[in-house]
């Protein structure tokens, strides 16, 4: 339960958003050449970090735009918000 500063709409309650999970997981460029291990890594394996995590959020009940959030999962404090395509802020 926290406030998210949507880069398009400003501060809104977290319940307006949906979380898209870990950010910066790159879609395979050559899917046909992937081994089963690489598919498993892409589809299922997650860092699931306790601490600073980079993740995707969608303002589902607002502007419906996707963006990235840097959040500390050990206390839900948000450190940065940045738009899709922007360089992630350094840790």
């Amino acid at each position: 339960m926290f406030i998210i500063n949507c880069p398009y709409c400003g501060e809104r309650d977290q319940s307006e958003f949906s979380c898209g999970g870990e950010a910066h997981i790159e879609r395979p460029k050559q899917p046909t050449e992937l081994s089963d291990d690489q598919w498993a890594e892409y589809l299922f394996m997650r860092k699931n970090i306790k601490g600073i995590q980079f993740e995707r959020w969608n303002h589902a009940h607002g502007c419906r735009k996707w963006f990235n959030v840097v959040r500390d999962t050990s206390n839900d404090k948000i450190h940065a918000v940045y738009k899709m395509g922007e360089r992630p802020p350094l840790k």
Partner: protein
Amino acid sequence: MKNKYSIFSLIKNALSNHENWQRAWRDPEPKKEYDAIIVGGGGHGLATAYYLAKKHGMTNIAVVEKGWIGGGNTGRNTTIIRSNYLWDASAGLYDHALKIWENLSQELNYNVMFSQRGVMNLAHNLQDVRDLKRRTHANRLNGIDAVWLNTEEVKKFCPIINTSPNIRYPVLGGTLQRRAGTARHDAVAWGYARGADAMGVDIIQNCEVKGIKRNGDRVDGIETNKGFIKTKKIGVVAAGHSSVIANMAGIKLPLESKPLQALVSEPVKPIIDTVVMSNAVHAYVSQSDKGELVIGAGTDAYVSYTQRGSHDVIEGTLKAILELYPIFSRMKMLRQWGGIVDICPDASPIISKTNIKGLYFNCGWGTGGFKATPGSGDLFAHTIANDEPHKLNAAFNLNRFVSGDLVDEHGAAAVAH
């Protein structure tokens, strides 16, 4: 040797004002080396240690727990026990546990207050009806007791349910597993701890794992806040913190950790003598022996380790509870809490070896691990002792995420489980 708990020990200790009870387990300092170390002193971890000692003769082992035993999800769940899962692999796993539950108090000489009061799952729409009927058939083919109840039979079994056809989520029927029920969750941890300790297992509390030392492709020991402990076998049963431990060993798991909430009401006289779950509206309720309503809510839909959970989640759950049970509208809620659950993409657990020799994981139980505690411990102990899975947990290996052979219980066992 521990004193056996009995009516006579109760009378004897009553005469001395209960001041002379023996400690239920020791409080040892860690040795330099163990044959195996279990990371995590919850129900599953303590059960694993118990069965390692009892069935596999491994008594030179330790359980390390960063807090106090049973202080994590073992003491935070809603104590529901059932085995009516859809797929054969899950049915085998959970019914194995249920069969152990049925004699657990006698075996441990510790009253875990296992109560087979039945678990009823409600259907609120046509798809629910089809899914639950299919599950009932699948259960019966696997030898698990399950019956389908129509709306009148639901009302008869639990009269306080609002079965009006005019509510938002009308009750169109439900399934009932009569062998299912509840148990006292703390007692499960304490009973296993006492049993394991009596066989020589060291239970080391306030001992946090800081690192896993590897020697090439095998484990060498654990770094803790109480120093380095050498061992050749590490069984990690760390629930929501499994990924944190995996990270120390340099491996990734297919898990996401999320807060799951529960809450209890003020105590009242007996009003609901069974467990009712509703997956569609994400609410389940039972009544504890103290008289509190025990209400389970859903998970927050994002990774968090905060053990709190969001208000809107319990608000949604309580709305559903009040529509289904209008009689609870004046009840006051006493306490609310969260536990961190590790959820697998297929909502089934992992009881498995890893690519690192001597490192085993028992995780991914997500929102429904309590019911499996005895079976999980038994099968994980087998896996650690033999370095091979038991046939009942063979399907729950880590490699299924590579092979694609998932045990997909997400839709089948429903979200709340």
